[in-house]
């Protein structure tokens, strides 16, 4: 069986940044496996700008942002395979991939980096009643059809869900001459970034109806209308509040789900909250030598943070195959509580000379003027005041080295909100 030091599954932003970082850390035998026609992943269909403010201090489009990393990969001569799907990963890190040129090939990897991204929650999983006509698309599928295939998916549009792709598509379709009648959101708050609500809805006069859902899809062959209703606290439609909007298209932007079918085959333990692997601060999963980064780990709002996280995964995978991993088997677990839904990482490695660790987290509701507090037992390790925290914006919190140095292996620290 062929061997590679590091096999990276996925050539989107996470996989690319991981590859570059692993190379720069000295590993020369890195292989990227990408299922699509080109590197760059979903960024290729994100032709709007707003990418790279953190990484490059400038506003790039998705393809431009991807291109920066693709060039870094090309400059280093890191090999990659396109139109190549990974069919299996074993806990021993045997990777089976399939493509037209080579057929089905097994390779053994010194380390595997999972960077498969996420998928959109489809209509069926939302249980939207009504007919099943043409014209019901997840926002990302519509985005691909418009921006890559150059197709016009609809003229009169209703959007369910205020995820970022849905918001971006509201603007995109408006600019292409479609009428976006409204965005309905089941929750009492938006799932997207504030800036997208302002730039994609408010600027175009598209109403956002919070606590509303679709209760009926009309039209046997093609969408003819959708009925929207207000929902109560239990998110059940309130009878009598129904309003029917004629439209030919319903876009769904109701959540992204990390795509971890391969991770499960590798035996990786997944978080029930994020849907992604549970990792330590080196982004190593429960399976030794298997790392995860990007949207397969947890769904991000900004690609800049994906790149940063993935670079860390790349460096740590390099350390793992180089035998210089700092991991010593002593860990501290992190528990999210009191309004904090999860943190990534979920556990920390204790080392003699700890480095600061950045925790990323999401909250489960909109919170104003709270403190984010980290505790070990009753002891307060860190407290940060937050003016506003929303589910649509990922938060971050750094644990300084001094705090980590004081922790004992086997301890649990808790991250939660307090008044």
């Amino acid at each position, binding site marked *: 069986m062929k061997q590679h030091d590091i096999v990276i599954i996925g050539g989107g932003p996470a996989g690319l940044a991981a590859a570059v970082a692993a190379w720069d850390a000295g590993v020369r035998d890195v292989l990227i496996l990408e*299922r699509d026609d080109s590197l760059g992943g979903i960024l290729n269909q994100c032709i709007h700008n707003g990418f790279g403010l953190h990484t490059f201090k400038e506003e790039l489009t998705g393809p431009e942002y991807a291109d920066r990393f693709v060039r870094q990969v090309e400059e280093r001569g890191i090999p990659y395979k396109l*139109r190549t*799907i990974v*069919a299996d990963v074993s806990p021993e890190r045997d990777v*089976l991939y*399939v*493509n*037209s*040129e*080579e*057929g*089905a*090939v*097994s390779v053994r990897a010194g380390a595997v980096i999972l960077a498969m991204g996420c*998928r*959109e929650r*489809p*209509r*069926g*999983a939302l*249980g939207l*009643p*009504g*007919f*099943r*006509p*043409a*014209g019901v*698309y*997840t926002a*990302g*599928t519509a985005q*691909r*059809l418009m921006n*890559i*295939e150059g*197709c*016009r*998916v*609809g*003229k009169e549009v209703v959007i369910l869900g205020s995820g970022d792709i849905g918001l971006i598509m509201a603007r995109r379709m408006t600019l292409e001459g479609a009428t976006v009648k409204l965005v309905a959101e089941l929750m009492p708050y938006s799932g997207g970034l504030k800036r997208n609500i302002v730039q994609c809805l408010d600027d175009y006069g598209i109403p956002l109806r919070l606590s509303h859902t679709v*209760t*009926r899809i009309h039209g*046997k*062959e*093609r969408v003819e209308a959708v009925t929207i209703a207000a929902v109560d606290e239990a998110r059940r*439609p309130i009878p009598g509040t129904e309003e029917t909007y004629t439209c*030919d*298209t319903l876009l769904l932007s109701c959540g992204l789900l990390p795509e971890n*079918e391969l991770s499960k085959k590798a035996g990786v333990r997944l978080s029930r909250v994020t849907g992604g692997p549970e990792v330590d601060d080196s982004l190593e999963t429960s399976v030794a030598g298997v790392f995860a980064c990007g949207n397969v780990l947890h769904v991000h709002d900004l690609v800049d943070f994906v790149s940063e996280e993935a670079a860390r995964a790349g460096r740590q995978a390099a350390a793992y195959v180089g035998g210089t991993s700092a991991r010593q088997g002593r860990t501290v677990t992190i528990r999210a509580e009191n309004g904090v839904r999860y943190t990534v990482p979920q556990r920390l490695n204790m080392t003699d000379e700890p480095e600061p660790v950045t925790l990323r987290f999401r909250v489960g509701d909109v919170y104003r003027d709270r403190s984010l507090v980290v505790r070990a037992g009753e002891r307060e390790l860190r407290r940060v005041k937050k003016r506003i925290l929303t589910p649509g914006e990922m938060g971050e919190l750094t644990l300084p080295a001094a705090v980590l140095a004081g922790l004992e292996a086997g301890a649990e620290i808790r991250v939660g909100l307090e008044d």
Partner: protein
Amino acid sequence: MERYDFDVCVVGAGVVGAATARELSRYDLRLCVLEKEEDVCSGTSKANSGIAHAGFDPETDSWMARLNVRGAELIRELCGPLDFAYRQNGALVLCFDEEEIPALRALYERGLRNGVSDLRLITGEEARRLEPALSEQVCAALYAPTSGIVCPFGMTLAFAENAADNGAVFRFLTEVTGIARDGEGYCLQTNRGPVRARFVVNAAGLYSDTIHNLVSAHKISVTPRRGEYMIFDQEVGGLVSATIFQMPGKQGKGVLVTPTVHGNLMIGPNAESIDDKEDTETTRAGTDEIARRARLSVPDLPLNRVITGFSGLRAHGTTGDFILGEVEDAPGFFDAAAIESPGLTSAPAIGEYLAGLIAERAGARKKEDFLAVRKGIPEVAKLPPEERAALIARRPDYGRIVCRCESVSEGEIVDAIERTLGARSMDGVKRRVRQGMGRCQAGFCTPRTMELLAEHLHIPLEKVTKNRPGSELIKE
């Protein structure tokens, strides 16, 4: 010149029409199948429970009882040579109330009378040993090991393709609008011109009353009875291994919980009589109802793992049985009308029966060159890696995965479009190779599949439809 275009014209390319055409194609008869939709398997045949019933349920001596038991035998016989997915997984009929045990016993005895083999009455505990996910409330069950699950699309396609391979002509988007007596036979008016045939088979499903009533003074009526279903992720497909029925009781016929032949879990159907034969809407009330009732059998149903829902329309007749055979006041016109459950299971037997009648009336002889075997599209991802690699070496497009959830390659999609009676729409591709049937529900593979359809049908992308005309995916 020959007065008739065809010896036999079958109206409807659902499972009954396809099975009948396939049986007729054994004979030296010129056959034609007219279908108003763009593809085979586009009505009731595409949206049902996918069960090959054992046959204990129908009243003894009814058409339903006889043809169900025979149909189940034929499905077991044919799934190999015709290459469609079938698995004999057994079924349990659950009883939740001690008082209903006599009724369960009556069902058992009816099954014996109907000729169903290996039936057993078992205790609630035995049932839970067989199926650990079952409710504690189950006090007894009827176990029918010969019950099976079948791919309704796969079976219908297999019959239709094999019929076509044996010479049957299929005409799609062809709707019968009138039928007139024409000498010894009939002239069928369609939106695409007249078709003359000596014999007619009415396999028009929900519209079998309309077709029948065009030729007979003895009117029949078929009403749509809607049933809703939910499909779960394959990851929870193993929650039950047998098909779990409920005792028909105060709440009606009961909702089933079953694995599908493709490894998903499915629940449904409820039963709602409606007026509109096109009304395949799902409803919140229906979804809630099947979930609630399925939970009586399997309390821990993972409802957060539902990937899709749909509803199907049963062609419900008023006689309580199939309406089958030559119509009294219309010689040469044969009904296969009001085919509701167990219609899918019975279909091959209906075909066998009707083809026999017609062949005899026509004085037809069996063909010597009848092709009894049909090969389906290879499921490349299910092959061992070496075989998969060998296949990809011959056909590189088998190595390019389009639908990642169901591991469907470009080559399989091309096959679906290019083969006998190939797919003409997205749904047609889906039913042939399962593209888009997985957990992302075609989110990723829609654009590429559209391109492949456009390329291989030689049509522009904006003409690609989900199913019938009017369901174009792109809005120009």
